[in-house]
């Protein structure tokens, strides 16, 4: 992001309070400082010599969730998450970031992921369609990955797997590790190019955002214009609507709710698709969380899980409390990272968590 845009954004946001109503971290911490306006004001104040980068202020800046709500709800679409990522890069370069950031940098550079200590796998092959696997599906939700593979094959799609075990670059970018993010992005796009695919399927809105927007805006890397980027839920919903695939409904009617994944607000046209798919397999009426669709809040599956685990935990707990209030007993989501976070504590709330693709594959006709 060009420096002048960072400055403009920070100056615009420092005294603007208009996205507080969807500010997820402020809602769980109740602290003005941990809001979009607070982050911008702290940055602006460091620039003016009123504060300095120290443990306190760096901690504040690394409390921003980077899940897109502030920008999605801004009438003038101020790219505050992008500006904060750029400021974090400055902090990283000053060697003032939290120690865990440098540990993550090492892991991402060496293994492409913080979730395993082995290098990304490569499945050679070419085809019209590629599936970006990433590291969360590979290491956190391998069952989801297996089901997705079977589901796609069953409906006649044989994708080339790319990015097996490699982060999409969002985590590094969000932490301010721009060079590492560029390396990961280039590696992913090189595999995409090698596959010859003209359509790239992704498993989450986070992946969709990263490929379609983050690469260009934050890293200056263009996603290939001749490749169509499609979220898997979108593809399946289109096929369902076109009558190309059918599902049986489950017999047992369990009150259920779809949990919009982290970053869902960054892909505004997606919200109906997973709900349409669920309506095809679930017999009862869906419950809805209060924080849903365009105002969906994240679980802790952002960089916060590494830098601010307490806040990440609060975000996940807030989603579970929201779900509990809705009357749901079963929570369903599609993003592997979101599912993993929900699973960690859902039991304490008497809630069961299932993957959307698991359910769809079970009921595929």
């Amino acid at each position, binding site marked *: 992001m060009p420096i002048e845009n960072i400055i403009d954004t920070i100056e615009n946001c420092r*005294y603007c309070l208009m996205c*507080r*109503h969807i500010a997820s971290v402020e809602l769980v911490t109740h602290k003005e400082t941990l809001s979009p306006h607070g982050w911008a*004001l702290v940055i*602006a104040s460091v620039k003016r010599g009123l504060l300095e980068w120290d443990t306190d*202020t760096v901690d504040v800046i690394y409390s921003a969730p980077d899940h897109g709500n502030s920008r999605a709800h801004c009438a003038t679409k101020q790219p505050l998450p992008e500006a904060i990522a750029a400021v974090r890069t400055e902090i990283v370069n000053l060697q003032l970031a939290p120690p865990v950031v440098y540990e993550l940098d090492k892991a991402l550079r060496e293994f492409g992921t913080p979730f395993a200590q082995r290098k990304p796998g490569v499945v050679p092959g070419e085809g019209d369609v590629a599936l970006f696997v990433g590291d969360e599906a590979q290491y956190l939700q391998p069952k989801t990955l297996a089901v997705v593979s079977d589901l796609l094959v069953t409906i006649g799609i044989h994708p080339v797997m790319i990015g097996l075990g490699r982060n999409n670059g969002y985590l590094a970018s969000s932490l301010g590790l721009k060079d590492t993010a560029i390396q990961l992005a280039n590696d992913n796009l090189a595999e995409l190019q090698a596959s010859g695919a003209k359509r790239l399927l992704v498993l989450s809105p986070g992946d969709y955002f990263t490929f379609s927007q983050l690469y260009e805006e934050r890293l200056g890397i263009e996603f290939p214009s001749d490749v169509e980027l499609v979220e898997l839920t979108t593809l399946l919903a289109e096929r369902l609507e076109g009558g190309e695939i059918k599902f049986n409904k489950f017999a047992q009617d369990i009150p259920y709710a779809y949990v919009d994944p982290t970053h869902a607000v960054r892909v505004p046209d997606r919200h109906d698709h997973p709900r349409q798919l669920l309506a095809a397999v679930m017999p009862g009426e869906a419950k809805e969380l209060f924080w849903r669709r365009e105002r969906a809040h994240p679980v802790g599956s952002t960089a916060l899980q590494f830098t601010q685990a307490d806040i990440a935990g609060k975000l996940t707990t807030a989603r579970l409390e929201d779900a509990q209030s809705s009357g749901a007993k079963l929570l369903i989501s599609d993003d592997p990272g979101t599912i993993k976070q929900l699973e960690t504590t859902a039991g304490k709330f008497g809630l069961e968590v299932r993957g959307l693709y698991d359910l769809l594959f079970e009921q595929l006709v």
Partner: protein
Amino acid sequence: MKGDQFLTEMIRSELAEIVGPEYVSVSDSDKLVYSTDWAWMPQMWLDRGQPLHPPDFIVHPGSAQEISEIMDIANKYRIPVVPWGGGSGSQGGALPVFGGILLDLKRMNKIIAIDEKSLTVTAEAGIIISQLEWAVNEKNLTFPHYAASSNCATLGGALAPRGTGTVSTKYGKAEDMVLSMQVVLPTGEIIRTPPVPQHAAGPDWFRLFLGAEGTFGVITEATMRLDYIPEARFLRAVLFDDLTKALEAGRLMMTRRLDPFVIRLYDPASTASRVKKILGYEYTGAYMVIGFDGDPELAELQQKKALDICANLDAQDLGSEPGEKWWKHRYDFYYPPQNLKLPWMYGTTETITTYDKIENLYWAEKRAVEEGFADLGIKFIGHFSHWFHWGVMLYSRFIVEEPPEDAQEALRLHNRIWNTAMQAVIANGGMINEHHGVGLKLSRYMRKQYGEAWPMMLKLKKAIDPNGIMNPGKTGFGF
């Protein structure tokens, strides 16, 4: 508070014992962020790299009981308590100018009950208004306090300065929607006002807390009136070439009780600048948006009658599109970079008076400001947005695009412009504000505004807050 560090730590420890260590902060970043609210003065001060007086402690209480215990500490040590909702006040009402304990109420954000029969909601005061609105929308109800600050202000923040929303002309101000409140008094007692406001059981004392901006206690809970989401909502725009006729059209709509939910009349200067910039319309004259809602047949008839009034006063009917567009983008005026923002100098000198005085007041204030500061290229714009049976509010603003760079010089100029505007307002029968509150900025005008009634206000303050701990420097108290 510049006292001994051991004393400071002792107080911090006592506060932490009440609310928990997680909910007391003395960090530099928190102190800076909570040292400014949405007023121009502190924002400009920080913008020029000048530090503000910070709070000594930022506390996030979780209950009225905790606030009561905090009051005990504040009285014991004689330190100020400054209630903080969204920090979106434009008059410096939440500035901790004497340090002390800043009480951020946002942790108290629960909805306690929604009564679908009586159409009321009871909620803690720290809930963000838009979140409250979303919650009642789930039951096909609305909390019709559509303030521009709804996304950031709290319920308590709407009540404390007697706030107003976009549809107040039909649905009333926040103070008209409140049935009852829980309040923690400066001396620590937790009280509840009567369950309904319309009764004859003595004086209407519960209104003491509305407009007091925290100087008489902390509003911790309120029961508010709701409405059904309107079945239909019709917006229309008309253009007058004459402000006199436009004001008369609004007066006729109100005095004939056509019940519009909005009449937004922009003066020619605002029409040419703000309306053009935000909505993209290039109109010459006074642009007026009128809206009617509720039962579609009734609303349509009301709109027809209103348009007849406008036509008789030579207005041009612009159709529904410029009205609908305004409604859709009505808050865009407040988003950067479209809002009034630094490095500009600006102030909203909003006021209210009766219909017989409003136009004279408008011209008097405009002349005083524009002629008094012509050398600065000052701009004076305004719109008339909250209408009553007897009068209307003028949302007047001044803008200086190239103010002095020096912070002190800029502040002095800002005060001079405000003085000029307020003198014109008071001399022409206006109130010093209608809904932004008094805060710090207007505090010095309270004696003049109230005249012989002011000592009674001081006696009330002394009786309710004997140690003067509550939000000193605001609403004329605590100097």
